[in-house]
């Protein structure tokens, strides 16, 4: 029995020693085996580089797509706002009392802040342009923000460089958003 116990203890000891020597060998191999260390390091570096590069590319792509989205949004928003604009010519008066043209407008669209950028008066052979004319309410007071909100009526006066001969004339109003509205009047 005792012999058997001694033999078991010896076996265990030798197993432990084997393990220790194996681990020592591995550690020493790890320490002294330059090829394996450089492989791990290079793999880590390569993976890190790939991750970093990927993140950079991702950030750049996101930035570009955000720019694109922003630009697309602005274009669509501008088009949508332009679509909502609607001006109606209530009356176009000429020559009473002076030889000016008074254009009476109503904003019957669904968007506020309709600003007038330019007004054209023309017939087949003649054209006059007026930039950023002054807008007045129908009670003849100047509109403070120089735009027509939804449901607002106002008028603008165009001073002509010469009197108009008789016939039909076109008057066209261009808004800041780029929409164009036109009417004809008879002199």
């Amino acid at each position: 029995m005792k012999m058997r116990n001694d033999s078991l203890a010896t076996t265990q000891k030798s197993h432990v020693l084997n393990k220790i020597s194996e681990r020592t060998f591995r550690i020493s191999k790890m320490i002294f085996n330059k090829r394996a260390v450089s492989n791990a390091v290079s793999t880590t570096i390569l993976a890190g580089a790939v991750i970093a590069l990927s993140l950079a590319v991702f950030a750049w792509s996101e930035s570009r797509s955000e720019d694109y989205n922003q630009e697309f949004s602005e274009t669509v928003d501008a088009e949508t706002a332009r679509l909502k604009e609607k001006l109606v010519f209530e009356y176009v008066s000429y020559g009473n009392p002076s030889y000016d043209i008074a254009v009476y407008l109503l904003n019957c669209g669904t968007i506020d802040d309709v600003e007038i950028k330019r007004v054209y008066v023309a017939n087949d052979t003649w054209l006059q342009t007026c930039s950023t004319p002054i807008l007045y309410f129908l009670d003849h007071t100047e509109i403070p923000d120089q735009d027509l909100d939804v449901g607002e009526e106002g008028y603008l006066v165009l001073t002509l460089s010469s009197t108009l001969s008789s016939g039909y004339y076109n008057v066209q109003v261009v808004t800041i958003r780029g929409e164009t509205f036109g009417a004809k009047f008879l002199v």
Partner: protein
Amino acid sequence: MARNSWFKKIWAGRSKGVSTVIGTVFLILIIFMVTTNVLLWSFLKNAEYNRAVMERNEEEAQRSTEKIAVSDVSYNAEAGSVWVEGIVTNEGPVPVQIKTLWVLDKTTQKHGYNDMVDINLKAGDTLNFTESKALIVAIDGLDDNSSDAFASWFVTARGNLIPLEEEHKWIQYNITNINNTSGGYPKVVLGALMLDLENFRYFTYASYDQLGNYPSGIRGYNAPAATDLAFGCFLTNVDPANRTIVLDSHSLMWFTLPVSDVPHNRWWYIVNVADDGTISSSYSNVILDHGETELIVFASAADIGDLGFLRQDTPKRGVPVSVFLLIHGTIGGQPYGQNIPFVSLYIEP
């Protein structure tokens, strides 16, 4: 597990392809996220734009379905303002808000507006704006009880312009006359003139230049042959644009005679006649203001403005003739000419 196996692979010195895998995964992630982001955003903005287009189309549809009828319109001028009366009915399927009333004085070309109207009409609603509810529009320089002609229109909140048509007396007359069971001729409107078919007449002469039975004459559609006669008819200025009509000396009444294959004609030029029936040897233009009715006399064989007055006789034998009015002059200051088929006569032998 996969991560452990990567580490094991690296540990075991078999790390080939790890970076490729990582790079590929990132690439796929980047592509997926970027495209998803852009596509979703595009869809969102497209939906917004499409909604705006739909709303715009709906507004246009509603704008085009607005239908307003304005009847019994009349204007009463006071110093500096005009009172507009009438009845407005919403005949369309959508509610209508009337924002502004515009009035144009067509005589002076001055305009005015009342932007405090604010009439709201549901589908089928009617509103009378008469007497104390009349809409008042200020027009600079308008005289009290001015006879100026006016045009007016409503502006709705949707941007429609609704013209107000003035009720015309001659239309009322026609309707009354058509419904008159005792008979009579309706009056005929051609262009700017209304012709009274019933009161066509001819005049005989008391002396060379004096009509014997002026102004009553002899009413009818038979006239004696080979007799010096003058003819008269009532014309009314019904120009829709309310302009004044001026008839010059070239206006005449024209007979055509179906007597052979060669056309035969007779004509009587317009003349001025005094109250006692005397025909003037010169001619001053006949002026027909809007709505005015006047007995016009055709008597001279020649244009008085060129050759003075010459009597004209009727055809020499029994024959039916067609009668035309050749009107010449100005309307609203602009040149005017109209050839009007009028009555037919039988020349009695």
